[in-house]
């Protein structure tokens, strides 16, 4: 029982006007099930943005669970997106690998509208393997923010979801094994090692990362799924890998994603990067993954955005919901008109081939103007699907 949740439920339950003919939950779920929706769902990744939108600073909510939850629910109540994204920063990924007294030297809390920066916790492949082999992440978990901050925040949002009779789903996020493999050592080190280290040693490291992720998944089964969570976003790593590296090593992500999808019926995958076409092929063949939040391939991009939207939509036909538009850069620095145009382009290019969800390929930056976020919502809401 949470006071902040009960306050919001009392204020909102039964008092909100409907948005379209479907509930937010029904709309997002239907799109991910590749079924007809009344309008294209809108679920931008507002995790950082909603904190400052609600009037808090990132420093202010860093250790305050109630304010974190308050920000997420207030943002939803005002904007009525089709999902609530749990707020999360990257501290949860590495805090449980290091003892409390060492954590301050690994984190920099940036400005009021910014976020947390971390420094790597292993500098060689041997160090990284040792961290996992000794299960450091189990030793230091209990006083980490994963337990002290994110778990209660997650439980509060799920409590809100359930008390509101599942009008709106809460989206949680889990990083994939490759994301962890890169994060704990810094991506540039990991990339080099794929070339210069023995393949079996890299494979061993990635398998250890997979085991840790699967252990973490059990936590999510117990505390998220059993409390009503059905929507899970997988944050992929491997954004600058080539096809050869994906073929060699990315199976750990596929294995993990399929396990996640067995627990969370609405699992989708966030992936961006240099080799996006190849990565999207892999993801679209992954059992149980119902949507892909994607970005642009960064080079060789001779295609226009509408052409790219269509190419991806064709690839996802009969398999996944396409989640994109506008770009996070345009959302932050474009005009409302430009945001609206890109949302329209995405919908026009996608709907003939698969379902769509307005969800930029990355998190919405804290500096993104409110009117641009509203523009993406309003544009989608203005278009009824016949």
């Amino acid at each position, binding site marked *: 029982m949470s006071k902040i949740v009960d306050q919001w439920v009392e204020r909102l339950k039964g008092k909100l006007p409907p948005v379209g003919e479907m509930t937010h939950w029904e709309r997002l779920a239907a799109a991910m099930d590749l079924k007809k929706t009344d309008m294209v769902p809108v679920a931008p990744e507002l995790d950082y943005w909603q904190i400052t939108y609600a009037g808090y600073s990132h420093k202010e909510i860093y250790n305050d669970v109630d304010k974190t939850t308050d920000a997420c629910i207030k943002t939803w109540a005002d904007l009525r997106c089709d999902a609530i994204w749990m707020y999360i920063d990257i501290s949860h990924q590495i805090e449980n690998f290091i003892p409390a007294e060492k954590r301050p030297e690994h984190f920099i809390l940036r400005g009021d509208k910014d*976020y947390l920066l971390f420094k790597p916790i292993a500098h060689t492949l041997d160090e990284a393997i040792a961290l996992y082999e000794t299960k450091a992440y189990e030793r230091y978990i209990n006083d980490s923010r994963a337990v002290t901050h994110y778990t209660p925040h997650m439980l509060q949002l799920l409590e809100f979801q359930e008390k509101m009779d599942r009008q709106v789903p809460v989206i949680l996020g889990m990083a994939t094994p490759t994301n962890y493999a890169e994060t704990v050592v810094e*991506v540039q080190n990991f990339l080099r090692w794929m070339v210069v280290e023995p393949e079996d040693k890299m494979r061993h490291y990635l398998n250890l990362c997979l085991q840790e992720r699967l252990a973490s998944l059990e936590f999510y089964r117990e505390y998220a799924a059993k409390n009503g969570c059905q929507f899970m976003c997988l944050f992929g790593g491997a954004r600058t890998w080539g096809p050869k590296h994906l073929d060699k090593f990315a199976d750990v992500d596929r294995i993990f994603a399929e396990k996640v999808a067995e627990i969370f019926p609405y699992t989708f995958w966030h992936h961006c990067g240099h*080799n996006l076409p190849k990565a999207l092929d892999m993801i679209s063949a992954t059992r149980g993954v119902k949507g892909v939040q994607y970005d642009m391939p960064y080079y060789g991009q001779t295609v226009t955005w509408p052409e790219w939207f269509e190419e991806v939509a064709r690839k996802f036909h009969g398999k996944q919901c396409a989640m994109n538009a506008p770009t996070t*850069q345009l959302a932050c620095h*474009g005009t409302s008109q430009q945001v609206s145009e890109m949302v329209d382009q995405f919908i026009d290019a996608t709907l003939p081939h698969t379902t769509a969800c307005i969800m930029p390929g990355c998190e919405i930056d804290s500096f993104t103007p409110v009117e641009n976020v509203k523009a993406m919502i309003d544009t989608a809401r203005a278009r009824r699907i016949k």
Partner: protein
Amino acid sequence: MSQTNHIEKLATAIEAMDMAGISTLVKDALAAGLTPAEVLSKGLSEGMRRVGVKFNAGEVYMPEVLVACDVYFAGLNIVRPLLATNDETIIGTMVLGNIHGDIHTVGKQVAMPVFEANGIRVIDLGENLNDNVFVEAIKKHKPQLVGLGTYMTSTFMHTAETVRVITEAGLRDQVKIICGGPAVDAEAARRMGADDAADDAWEAVEKIKKLLGRA
């Protein structure tokens, strides 16, 4: 072995990511009578150019590029002390650093050798830089260019603030500002007050040449 063969071996070593062999190859080339500038421009830099062609063709990706850069630097470190300081191949000087909040060196480590191989002298300021570091570096080094490295979308968005600080210091007119990294967008960079942005080092070189009027 002819000098042409030495040059070809150097370029091939970069392409092949031959870290073990590069030192010997550079020394052999110098011993064969090649000048340090020839070793750099015709051998090592040619190798990086070829890596760039393969990168843009999707034949190699960032992991291979990073290792090729390491090999280039290993060779460069041998010839750099021998190079004449008034090298006419230099087209400009850049102060380059990772924008506030970004510690990923992946892009900068690729950009530096590619830039140097194309006549852009690079002064590496480091990572996660306070905006004032760029201001002080402009005053100290008098560069024509400022390079803002960023790996993530969120840190790219800090460009506006960095440009504002440089402008308030009265230095904006003295430099061209270019952003680089996988999440940059040229239009957004210009809206934030920078001159351009590129998501790979070779594209950045072409844009820098245009900014400097050297295209």
